[in-house]
């Protein structure tokens, strides 16, 4: 077991635990948000181990830095730091959900176990893989359409958020 593998299990485990912490924590919303940050950062570390450097940077900056902070901001704005909704009495329905979720997981894992894709370890990555230069060049050549469309998407999101959230009505 190499150091990389150990780190992967470490961060992977951390991601799972903090994700569970986010979902299962029914007392404190702020703690949930902070658990999400931990998950995101751990995943960023896993991306580094997978040699996707630029994505790892974005993961930390955009997810950890922007999105989660936005959540935290809304939680604070609405003063929702304590969760007012104690566990539902519909435990049965929840258990049904759990069963369904586990069934999905089982299906995916069964599917994975059979896959020839994982029979051999992946080959070494080519020079410059996952770096800003390669990603940047491709984004502005092969994938330039996506960049443009993503800009429209963000425009739509800005307009939409403004419409929905602005305080003044009419």
């Amino acid at each position, binding site marked *: 077991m190499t150091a990389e593998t150990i780190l992967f299990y470490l961060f992977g485990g951390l991601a799972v635990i903090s994700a569970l912490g986010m979902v299962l924590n029914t007392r404190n919303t702020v703690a949930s948000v902070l658990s999400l940050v931990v998950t995101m950062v751990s995943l960023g570390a896993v991306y580094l181990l997978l040699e996707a450097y630029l994505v790892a940077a974005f993961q930390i900056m955009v997810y950890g830095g922007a999105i989660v902070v936005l959540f935290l901001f809304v939680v604070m704005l609405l003063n929702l730091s304590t969760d007012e909704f104690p566990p539902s009495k519909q435990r049965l329905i929840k258990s049904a959900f759990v069963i369904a979720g586990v069934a999905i997981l089982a299906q995916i894992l*069964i599917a*994975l176990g059979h896959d020839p894709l994982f029979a051999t370890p992946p080959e070494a990555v080519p020079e410059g893989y996952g770096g800003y230069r390669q990603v940047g060049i491709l984004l502005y050549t*092969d994938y330039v359409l996506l960049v443009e469309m993503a800009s429209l998407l963000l425009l*739509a999101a800005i307009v939409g958020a403004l419409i929905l959230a602005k305080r003044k009505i009419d």
Partner: protein
Amino acid sequence: MIPAPDLNLSVLLPIILVAIGSMTILMGEVLLSRADTVLGREVTESFIGTVLAGTAIFFFALTLWASGVAFAGGGVQVFNPDNPMYQLDPFSSFVTAVLALSALLSCALSITYLSELRINHGEYYALIMLSASGMMLMVAAVDLIAVFLGLELMSIPIYVLAGFDRRKLRSNESALKYFLIGSFASAILLYGMALLYGVSGGTSFEALRAGFDADNPMALVGLGLVVVGFAFKISMVPFHQWTPDVYEGAPSAVTAYMSVTVKVAAFATLIRLLAMAFGPLEASLETIFWVLSALTIVVGNIMAIIQENVKRMLAYSSIAHAGYLMIGLVTGTIEGYSAMIFYLIAYTFMNLGAFGVVVALANRGNDCERIASFAGLARTRPGLAAVMALFMLSLAGIPGTAGFMGKFKIFMAAVNSGDIWLLIIGVLMSVVSVYYYLRIPVLMYMREPEDESHRTEIASGEGAVLVVCALAVLALGLFPNRVPTLLFGDLDVLDWANRSVGMFFGG
């Protein structure tokens, strides 16, 4: 040195036009709102709204023209030859034209309705245009990334539009449900895409087709999840439950828009995916589509029977129509796909028309959505009652209307590919459907008017849309081979439908 990509911008013209339109509107609203002080608030608002709607209509008309020209040209062009993401071919240009047309009609339908609700903001039209650009990207995409991005660009503005009347709890709720379930569904879709990427090593349809192996469980899981993602968008049972809630709660004009365009775009994308990417896996999908189609037809029709709200009834009816459309997917033949395209066009006009009548009846703050409020409409609003009756007959599939022609083609495709039982279910449930569709004409023509505060005047935009839809419904039912138009000669819509899907079969 980075080699400059060899881009073919003219191919992207439909999207570019729509995007420019949306930005023009956003800028225009800011500039025009200065006029506030001169004209007074009331006048300014309705004036600005009308001008911006006119801008949207203008740009959609340009888009319609651009895609029509591309369709007439007939060839296959890609935006970026190095990595084709967006492919303008007969199929995508035709569907783009249909989308542009229905978006145009929706904009014309909205003006007065929004003024009545006092939400006639330019953002509304900008969001419609942005979502239309997403649809246009999606139907022309030949790469999973572009499909996903198009899907999201289509959905996010519509989440907002559903909640556009944000003072109303129902509108809020509609937006919330649509958003919640929609983003859940796109996450599932996305996971499916990830697995498909894992199987094939690429995201383009070509790579998917090459990399598939029908025995690979990971490919099958990915396929299943992608199907679920689309099943949500076209509201197949059991992924349909959001539909009635969202359609009911959203402002009627928005419902009109999303009930047709989203369905057209999602079905078109599904056709392209099946024809171009999932070819090798089709056999395993056939049974699934068969069962979902039968379920969708049955549940949609039976649930529609017991509705008391016309928008909810139309929502269940749109579910049932999705079921009929899926018969075309089950067949997987050129005939089936062509029938689907024709049916989608017919559905666009009749559904837009039916919602258009609901919009035209809506009075300020009073949406007249109860089915019972249609009582005696033939007395008070004979013209509206007549077109509503026509749309209902068309939705029910009475011959001589577009709805019949669509159903006939779909059922014919089913017969020709041997799906007799699906045919029997479809025909039987379309017989049942007459029951709830005919309730509205019965109320309009055979009951005395209630004291219902309908709007008494029809706005010119609404009137024009209803006339266009009614004429189209009749023309597509009576002469689909040569729809007479004053400007462009006779149009052979059936042949267009054949030509647009012909490219998937080497035509």
